[in-house]
């Protein structure tokens, strides 16, 4: 009986966050049901904007207060009929290019964008160089005579008669 009580308590405890999550979801649903198309556009664009408080998240993923405010700002601008690009420009003007989740491709970010490709090419180059070198070494490896072959075989099998 005691066990059952504890399990019940545990369930209650675990269900608290779920209940809280529910309320968040319902308020968000209320917004979404108003205009699902607009909301989709808001979320799409928000996923291109960095949340400056929790920098590895986009403002679409984050529930930080600033992220919510910025989403509202995005929604408002869309309702005013602004294009996605206009809204991105608006954000960049205030928060800098860092606010774009995908960095722009320009001369200062070339290394960032193409660096991994460069490393891959470098790695492939080293690999090919080493494979070639190895093949050359193999070609110049001394060829064993039949006698040496049998000796090697007996050495490998562990009964080296010549020395025992």
């Amino acid at each position, binding site marked *: 009986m005691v066990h059952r009580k504890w399990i019940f308590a545990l369930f209650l405890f675990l269900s608290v966050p779920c209940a809280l999550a529910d309320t968040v979801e319902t308020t968000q649903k209320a917004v979404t049901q108003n205009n699902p198309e607009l909301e989709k556009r808001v979320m799409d664009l928000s996923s291109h904007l960095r949340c*400056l408080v929790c920098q590895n998240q986009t403002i679409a993923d984050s529930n930080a207060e600033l992220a919510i405010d910025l989403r509202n*700002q995005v929604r408002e601008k869309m309702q005013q009929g602004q294009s996605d690009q206009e809204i991105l420009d608006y954000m960049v*003007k*205030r*928060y*800098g290019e860092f606010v774009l989740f995908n960095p722009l491709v320009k001369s200062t970010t070339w290394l960032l964008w193409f660096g991994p490709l460069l490393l891959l090419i470098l790695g492939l180059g080293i690999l090919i160089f080493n494979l070639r070198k190895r093949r050359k070494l193999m070609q110049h490896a001394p060829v064993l005579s039949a006698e040496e072959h049998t000796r090697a075989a007996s050495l490998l099998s562990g009964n080296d008669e010549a020395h025992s």
Partner: protein
Amino acid sequence: MNRFLIPLGIFIVLVVFLWVGLSLNPREIPSPLINKTAPAFELPQLHEPNKTIRPEDLHGKVWLLNIWASWCVTCREEHPLLVELAQKNIVPIYGLNYKDQREEGLALLRESGDPYILSAYDHDGKVGIDWGVYGVPETFVIDKSGLIRHKFIGALTPELIQNKLIPLVKELNGA
């Protein structure tokens, strides 16, 4: 010889990169608003809701805009420094009370002193967004022609005020 030199070289390069990289503060994002005109706004004052405050009205003087809130712990740490700076009469400090409750903001000023000539009341944080605010406290230095010349992100420290803020204000005042 090469066997040791190459790994050593790679190691040194790595150390230099980490040394520089880890000493950077990722929270400090350079503001694109530096040397741009301060974004305009017209907000109710914190003390007197029926009066407004506009940056244009401050044209012709060097001033500070300090973004603060009663819920922001770092702002409370910074607060005594602002009070002290205000007493020195070096530069007028204006406040932007960011996403706060009016009563709580006023209570903080009553308890710990009011360093601000005036505080604007930005309840929904819209003006904050316009100014690119993402972490309070932030302090902007605005020059006589209304350009933002510097932004301090996070709390001011006695060193920052002494070595950076005051010299900058003096320079902008042409003294």
